[in-house]
């Protein structure tokens, strides 16, 4: 049975079904070889069931969502409050991660990226390794063969291991250029380098030399800003890179990187690079995978509602004092949540007006709340 035919029947019944439901009806009709009359009957029944399943007007969806996410959260606390290592990378999981997501933290504790490649490169290990070394942080210490601090001559001599340079697919001339730029007093003889410290006070000469030694070793010669370790993994037929630290904007600009699947777990970075709608999707994805990883299932609709609220203003804001709860229109609602004194004082200084349209305000003053049956009022028409 084709989808268009089902759509036609649905339209005839004067109702609107979501795309997925229509697809499922079409599949079911196909499976059971329904004729036109039976299909008619099926749609009629589904129309009834669909109406019954829908959220009623005035339902407290927010409260239900909060409880539905909160209850499994209590089980999380008991099971994990630590880090679990995924492969060689440490990724925050469980309740701490969930809190991080709803709090919309600017700096998350373990940012990580999954980098994938365009089809022509995805099976090319050599290419992936070369990119991995351009993304991952490599310091001079990683490619040294010999390192000597000579206190008699007050200088520092290092030997660069050409094998390591080749193994890491680095460009030798680029490394030398970086070293020359970072240090002025450097003597380069092929792969033997010697450094001299700038000594301002002879009394601190030894200290200066040691400081220089650390500086030389820690000189970053390759890598994208904010990204540390990289792990190369084979996922099915293709190669992928996972990173510690994240810089979506810079990585997406690299050649060969798949621009549709490469992503990060840092929601603010997604917002900055891909926009609010992408951030909304990232929140849903992150929250759901965090719950699923713990063996808990929460209906996506609850998480979608949370994500919708967090991104409704065009920017990602947190739930709680500094975000949604802190921006409620009603003074009484805000004061009953957190920082009671601050809100009451500020409201009185500014002369804020409370229109008593929310739930909390009406409970406080003892009126019916605008929820369920309480959300309907009676309006009389003037007789003219």
């Amino acid at each position: 049975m084709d989808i268009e035919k089902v759509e036609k029947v649905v339209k005839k019944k004067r109702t609107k079904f979501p795309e997925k439901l229509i697809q499922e009806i079409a599949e079911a009709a196909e499976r059971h070889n329904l004729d036109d009359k039976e299909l008619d009957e099926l749609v009629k029944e589904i129309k009834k069931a669909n109406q019954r399943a829908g959220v009623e007007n005035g339902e407290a969806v927010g409260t239900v969502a909060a409880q539905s996410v909160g209850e499994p959260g209590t089980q999380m606390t008991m099971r994990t409050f630590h880090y679990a290592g995924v492969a060689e990378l440490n990724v925050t999981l469980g309740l701490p991660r969930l809190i991080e997501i709803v709090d919309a933290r600017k700096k998350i504790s373990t940012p990580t990226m999954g980098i994938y490649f365009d089809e022509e490169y995805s099976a090319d290990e050599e290419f992936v390794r070369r990119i991995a070394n351009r993304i991952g942080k490599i310091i001079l210490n990683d490619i040294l063969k010999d390192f000597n601090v000579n206190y008699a001559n007050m200088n520092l001599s290092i030997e660069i291991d050409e094998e390591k340079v080749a193994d890491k697919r680095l460009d030798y001339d680029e490394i030398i250029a970086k070293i020359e730029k970072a240090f002025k007093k450097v003597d380069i003889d092929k792969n033997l380098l010697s450094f001299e410290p700038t000594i301002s006070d002879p009394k601190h000469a030894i200290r200066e030399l040691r400081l220089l030694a650390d500086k030389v070793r820690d000189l970053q010669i390759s890598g994208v800003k904010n990204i540390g370790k990289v792990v190369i993994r084979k996922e099915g037929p293709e190669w992928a890179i996972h990173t510690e630290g994240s810089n979506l904007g810079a990585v997406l600009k690299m050649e060969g990187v798949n621009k549709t699947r490469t992503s990060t777990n840092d929601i603010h970075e997604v917002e900055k690079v891909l926009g609010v709608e992408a951030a909304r999707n990232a929140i849903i994805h992150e929250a759901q995978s965090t719950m699923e990883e713990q063996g808990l299932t929460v209906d996506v609709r609850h998480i979608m509602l949370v994500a919708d609220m967090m991104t409704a203003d065009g920017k990602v804001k947190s739930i709680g004092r500094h975000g949604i709860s802190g921006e409620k229109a009603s003074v009484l609602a805000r004061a009953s949540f957190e920082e009671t004194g601050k809100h009451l004082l500020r409201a009185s200084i500014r002369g804020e007006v409370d229109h008593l349209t929310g739930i909390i305000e009406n409970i406080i003053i003892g009126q019916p709340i605008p929820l369920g049956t309480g959300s309907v009022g009676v309006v009389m028409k003037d007789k003219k």
Partner: protein
Amino acid sequence: MKKDILKHKLVPDHTILSDTEAKKVVKNLKVHPEQLPKIKADDPVAKAIEAKPGDILQITRKSHTAGKFVTYRLVLE
């Protein structure tokens, strides 16, 4: 680069509505434009499709539950 982000799997389809379409949408939803969810004019996607403040964007999301879901955002300054 600017257009590349539109192909990302996290980014749903954004289209700018014409004035008449926008009026129809607002009327059908029975809301004021200001009551719609917002999107900033300097949002990467809004910039990529060159949306101006005051425009209404139609966003066609892929939904886990409905298959496809159409929503709207008002472009803010």
